């Protein structure tokens, strides 16, 4: 079924909140309290809501420094592998360090949406 425009990435379904939502939908379907069609609709609403909310509502920010080890751009997806990363939260918040970080970033406007 073609979804109504605009369409949203499904990548947040793999986040903790997305996986928990899917587990809960599975449970409701298992108990026959929900149709899979409704679950599908809920997940597509989730795709939209989380994308829009992260874009519009989340204003917290951090900066990070590290050594860029690898980068690539394939099928409109940028991937960066960064080593020895230090994250600094805003307003003098805590500093977090990581040996390795992988950043996968997709175009906010999906292919074909551009003028």
């Amino acid at each position, binding site marked *: *079924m*073609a979804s*109504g*425009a605009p369409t949203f990435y499904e990548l947040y379904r793999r986040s903790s909140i997305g996986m928990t939502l899917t*587990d809960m*939908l599975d449970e409701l*379907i298992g108990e026959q309290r929900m149709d*899979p*069609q409704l679950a599908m609709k809920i997940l597509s609403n989730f795709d939209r809501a989380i994308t829009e909310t992260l874009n519009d509502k989340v204003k917290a920010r951090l900066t990070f420094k590290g050594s860029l080890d690898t980068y690539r751009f394939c099928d409109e997806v940028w991937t960066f592998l960064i080593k020895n990363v230090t994250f600094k939260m805003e307003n*003098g918040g805590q500093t977090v360090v990581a040996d390795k970080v992988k950043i996968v970033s997709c175009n906010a406007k999906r292919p074909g949406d551009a003028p």
Partner: protein
Amino acid sequence: MDSIPYPSSQAEVEALIRALYAPGPPARIKHIQEVLQKVQKSAEGWQLAESLLSNPDSNLKFFGALTFIVKLNTESSSLSDGDAIQLVENLVGWLLQAVAEGAGPGHFVVLKLCSALSTYFIHFSRLWKHCIRHLVQCFDIGRYIPLQDFDDAVPVLMAASSLRWDKLQAVICFASTLADDIERTDPNSAKYADLHTHALENAKDVVELIFIGMNDNRHGDKTVAVGEDAIGCLQSWILYARSLSDTSDTLRVLLRPLVDKLISLVGSDGLGVTSVELLTEIIDSHPGFLNEDYYQKLSSMFQTEHFQARYRALVQGDFDHDNELFIWLMLSYGGARVSKLIESTDEQSQLFLSGLVGLTGCPGYVAAEDTVFIFTVEFWSTFVETMTDDFGFSSRERQPWFNTAMGHVKQVLSNCWRKIQWPPIETLMEWDTNDRARFVEARKDVADLLEAVFAMTGPPLVSMFVDLLLQHLNSASWTELEASAFCVASLADCISDDENCDDMISKVFAAPFFALMLEGQDKVPLRLRHISLQLIERYSDYFERRPEFLASALNLLFGGLGDPALGGDSAKYIAKLCSSCRHILTGEVPAFLGQFDGIYHRSPLDPLAEEKVVLAIASIIQAVTNDADKLSAFAQLFNFARQDIERSIQIAANPQTLNLEDPLHRRGIDPAELQAEPSPAEVSLQLALRALRCISGMAKGMQSNRDGPVDLDAPASQWQIGPELAALQNDILTTLNQVLVTFPTNGEVVEVICNIFRAGFIEAEPGPFVFPPPIVSSFFTSLTLNAPRIGTVVSTACSFLSSLFKGPRDQLLPTLSQLLPWVISLLQALPEPKADTELTQHSIDFVRRLMAKAPEVLFQLQPSSLIEFFFLFTLEVLNGSEPLPKAAAAEFWTEFLALRSEDPAIQASISGAMEHLGPLVSRSLMRNIGGDAMRSELDKLSEPLKKLVTQHVRAQAWLEAALLAEGFPSDKVSPQEKRMFLKKILNLRGARQTNQVVREFWLACRGSNFAYAS
């Protein structure tokens, strides 16, 4: 509630429908709905729908149309062509009748009948190919025209131009519904291929219909309503065009000319706003719909008098919603054309960009009054980032457009600097929390813009704001000074590492800046003092290089500690600055201790702020090179906390000694409840917690600075410590034990003590909190299941375990042999694994870590019943449903199944254990993967399975037995499918694709209902 019998007559059905739409208890309504749905699905549903639509009652008509939709969606294949043709005749007839009877176009019966006709088209488009043209002609002559008599050569443009407004609106309503419904079907599915072909055959008629709707001035006061419906219909068809593949351009080509009309309507009084809304949506959601030609037309439209009038009204402060809509169109256009706009130096583009510059300078405060500033700043951030990203640095500045573009950006920055200035306090107090939050967000957006601009301009941008700061410092213009300081602070990340910029920053801190800020709140507003503290924090690296200003900065920060509004941030920044500049400040330790002595004896600080201050002082003490001086200074600092704890214990033992007039006793009062009269027990506990948090701050402060060199060849620490340090450690442990004994049931006490221990685990050098392992181990094992937050204690033991492996192995084994039985005995004391999931999770994690590094400790554990219990316990957890313990158990089995030892005796133990455990773990994994596990657990459960098939020769037999065993959770997969799954898993030999095969098998076991998610 009485059950509702199935209706036996038409009258009973009608009564039920009336009851459905009348107010009533929700349960009854739901029950009626269920009965009526049965009626709809029955064989009599078709006749029922017909008779309902013949009834004058609107609710009955509505339900009749709804019933047709249900029947068409479920039983359309049962209709012969003759029946289907009869059906469209009836439906069109009822629509004509409803409109003729005066049901307006927005009436629910008309809407539902349009929806029924649209559903009809989806199922029988081959019979009603020219639906729009046919419906227009039917309305034109006022009756249904049999399909065989209908003249499909008559264009819609001709027939529709004479329709009365209500008839025209009804046809437009049908055309909109048609696009909405067809858009929801899959254009790539063979099932709907003919539908989309037939829909496109109607597209030309739709275009003519919309054109008439947008162009027709015959309808008096209904003209605008007709036009709005036509624009809505265009929106639906554009959305439909978007859902079609990019290669199918037919519909877009047909629809595009209507955009000309849409642009021309922007200047009209009636349809201007609706047109602007649709144009904005097209650019935002479907920018590829418009080609270059239309963007040019839009560009010209922005310069028309009508548009300019709207623009002028807004930039003069009239933030009327309609004016805003015109501005959204400008911003959407700007966003879509940003690359072109950067490069264009023509007059029209420059006028447009100047217009967008002007939007950053509208009168009124951001958010509370000016609603477009935030969105305009977003555009300019995109503009600057595109300048940086799309045009290489070397070529950028040689481009003819560069100076013009930068001219706009500079003007924007100037406007932004004015707009981020805080309003007077009385104005601020009138704002609601949303307005305040959005004002702060706008400042953050401006900070982002500044960083983006810095990427092009470099340090001169900072210099500009430094000059502004100095200028307004001299004139004591507070709001301008605060905005300038904010901009300088926002650019800290860009230059704080750059020594070449230090001279520029020195101008700020060398000026009478500190002296002015120290004058306090009587003279300097709170906002300015706050930003000055932030400025110090953001440039803490600078103070390391230029210590001459460090003392003034710290004085200012300490001065802020007593201020309720600034205390928390001041403490945080003191900790950061002292930690990063610790090596410079070692000579000032006595002064810091003296300063803290004053704080300690005065009115108490907020406990969290005090913890940070103590951390700051401890971090300076840590940098003292002479060990004796270091220990002496630390002992003085620790003494403050010890006194608090002694006082706490005294009050707990003798409540009558509590004296709330004594400032040292008042340290035990929560600052948020200063006015209350707390009990001695509360004061005693708060005093102890405050002291423990301070000790925790000391422990963090005493951690070595990680920036120093690490000698990889140095021998591992032997935990040999001198007598002074040993005495100090003993002092600390005694104090902690006293608190634990006094408050044995308080979870927070246990948690803070765990944090204190943790701080020492990562240290490589001896220190007050780097306790000898046997002492730490004894502390842990003294706690039983009855201790509060025992899960946190075991989690701390996990961290301890990791730190132990950095030390000498001969000291390690006795400690592990002490800890392991303690952890397992805690699990044995649990009535069931889920009684304390935190303990279960961390205990399994502890044993896994231990097994990976020292398997001999696990397999030589005595009595051996402990290890047997543990294996069966983890299997029970793996079969359970608690996510975190289950994940820990899966990790444990992954580690165990891959475990190998060079020691033959240990290896024999591992092999012997696998003989018993292999079938059991196989069964547990197969039960989970066979449907018992949650979807999110599958990846974790795939890991032990991969290890099982790659490391154990009998895996195939164990897994096959598990798959075919009775009690397998699913009956949806056959034995052949199970064997096929096993074959795939074995062939993959632990490869990553195993996860996908596991997922597919889980889905097969659960059934197709669970295939809704990818």
